[in-house]
């Protein structure tokens, strides 16, 4: 095999792995920012590229990723998930449940 092609494949695999690991294991804010940035870049593409749908999906994913816990995907709660398609009016935090411990109390009679 050509050594140049060999090295190119190794460097590509390494770069892709590093970006993926950073994306999956990094903080959710980073993930959100990355997705939003990529969505903006894709949206700038000329109309004939037909990438508007991709940009919209990336934008939606950027909003959805705010609910991520760190991205291990191990819990199965996202596995085979239903089509989580919050309406445009729903804020990012609405798809996530935040119940502070202190606010969980007994029923008041």
């Amino acid at each position, binding site marked *: 095999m050509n050594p140049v092609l060999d090295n190119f494949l190794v460097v590509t695999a390494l770069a892709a792995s590093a970006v993926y690991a950073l994306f999956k294991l990094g903080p959710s804010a980073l993930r959100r920012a990355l997705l939003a940035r990529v969505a903006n870049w894709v949206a700038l593409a000329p109309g004939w590229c037909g990438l508007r749908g991709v940009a919209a999906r990336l934008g939606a994913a950027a909003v959805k990723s705010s609910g991520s816990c760190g991205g291990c995907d191990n819990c*199965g709660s996202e596995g085979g998930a239903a089509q989580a398609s919050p309406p445009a009016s729903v804020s990012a935090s609405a798809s996530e449940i935040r119940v502070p*411990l202190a606010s969980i109390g007994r029923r008041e009679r």
Partner: protein
Amino acid sequence: MEALSGAHPIPLVALVGNPNCGKTALFNVLTGSRQKVANYAGVTVERKEGSLVTPSGSRVRILDLPGAYSLDPLTPDEQVTADVLLGRRAGESAPDFVVCVTDATNLRQNLRLVLSLKRLGLPMVVALNMTDIARRKGIVIDPERLSRELGVPVVETVGVKVSGAKRLIDMLDSAAIPPRATGKFEWRTPSSDDIARDQAEVRRILKAVGADRIDGVTFSDKLDAVVLHPVVGPLILAVVLFLVFQAVFAWAQVPMDAIKAGVDALAGWLGQTMPESLLKGLLVNGILAGVGSVFVFLPQIIILFFFILLLEDSGYLPRAAFLLDRIMGSVGLSGRAFIPLLSSFACAIPGIMATRTIQNPRDRLATIMIAPLMTCSARLPVYALIIGAFIPQRTLWGGLQLQGMVLFVLYLVGVASAMAVAYVLKRAGAGARFQSLMLELPAYHWPILRNLAIGLWQRVEIFLSRVGTIILALMVILWALSSFPAPPPGATGPAIQYSIAGHLGSWLAVIFKPIGFNWQISIALVPGLAAREVAVGALGTVYALSATGENVSGALTPLITHSWSLPTALSLLAWYVFAPQCLSTLATVKRETNSWRYPIIMAAYLFALAYLGSFITFRVATALTNLG
């Protein structure tokens, strides 16, 4: 769709009902999703949304809400349901339509929520679910009569059958449902008089529809007389769990050997056909050695989850919670903590989320803090690797496997440590005082094959996607860190010793030397922080690169058998019983407690426990080995 035109551009239909009445099964049928279902209360703790296209082509959004006994929430999961229905959730208005799912075999309890929802004023239909089981029990309810008595439409459904929701879909598609009134829905906490009135109304309706018969001794009651017996019950539980762990080793050997042979053959073929190059090193020593070492444990994970799903679907698990209530109460936990802790055997993340079903905040916090001590499935490859390498494949009395027994003991150690930590938390004032357990025990039923198959497939999917994504990515990075920079001219040791990872391993080995870890183990612990099973892949890569000469991608077990002492292996097992090596778990704790305080405390105490546990294990094992 005329009928469901409401506040939302696409009508929003909420599935509401008591816990364990089959809402999620119905949701899966309506939306084609594969959300987790099981035969116990509290499986769904957050809202799930999907969509349904009706036969006339209209699109409807379907919302699956956590089970609730009333609109007056006691637990965080019930709070979610009440907030959604009352339109209190930020950025989300109340649903346009409610499908109140009821268990036809337990209408007496379910109708109280129906009456509450009716008072709320949202357009509603009652789905009389599990009618197939009800008929088998001799309970026949006329939906039309029930509809007249309740004053709302009633349809029969069977949530576990694909065709079981046809009538409901037809109703959602029809124009018979009035649009909901606009504005806020007011709810006031019912007084004791209101509750008494509701109970009287439930009795009247049951009598009118001929469902007021109270069953005598059922099959479940007869079985419970044995399963819940104070002496026999715990024995049965211990035997069931013991046999599960026996099966994990006894049944998995053949498929594991087949996978191992496949990985070896592929590595051998690549080694022979490819010329020496960086790409060959990456493929053989990085990807195959690393990813192959983890992939080989797939059969054991499938077997473990097969049994867990079987127990879940049969209705046995809530009984186990009941049996363990006394023990859990003695360390400051309630029996309600059992289900979250049991979920943690799959992964601590759903376990921690399942603590939302716990009413008392201190009890909930104590359960969150001990959940990572339950042996999650990511630990299984680590345990299986070390057990396979150091525990002989010996059969003891009665055909019991020694390896299976050791695995069982490791799981027990995890549980015992969790109980000990809960006791300490109780003494320190962070745990809850003993509270009596009120838990609904569902009727036993034969596990549904479809549920089993879906559950198993999801576990396989999750495992394979982890192996093919994050584990693969980390192995590629580790290979690069272990291969560069290249050794200086005239170097005699393996190349990895001169690499970045080699240097890092040498520094870390200073910290881990007192607990018996060598530099290879020390390196593997770092990527293992992402997820525990990554450590196995990392060991595969590190040892493949540490070896000189022939390709060793498929031979991690004999390699560690020769390079580790027994005390080191036991010390690493002890490390993995305690260490919180999963960043996602800590992130989930932060999210669930809304504070960084608890994940930091959790990480600190678990690392301290891991180091102490490994230190004691290593020292004691070394002393015993020397004596021997």
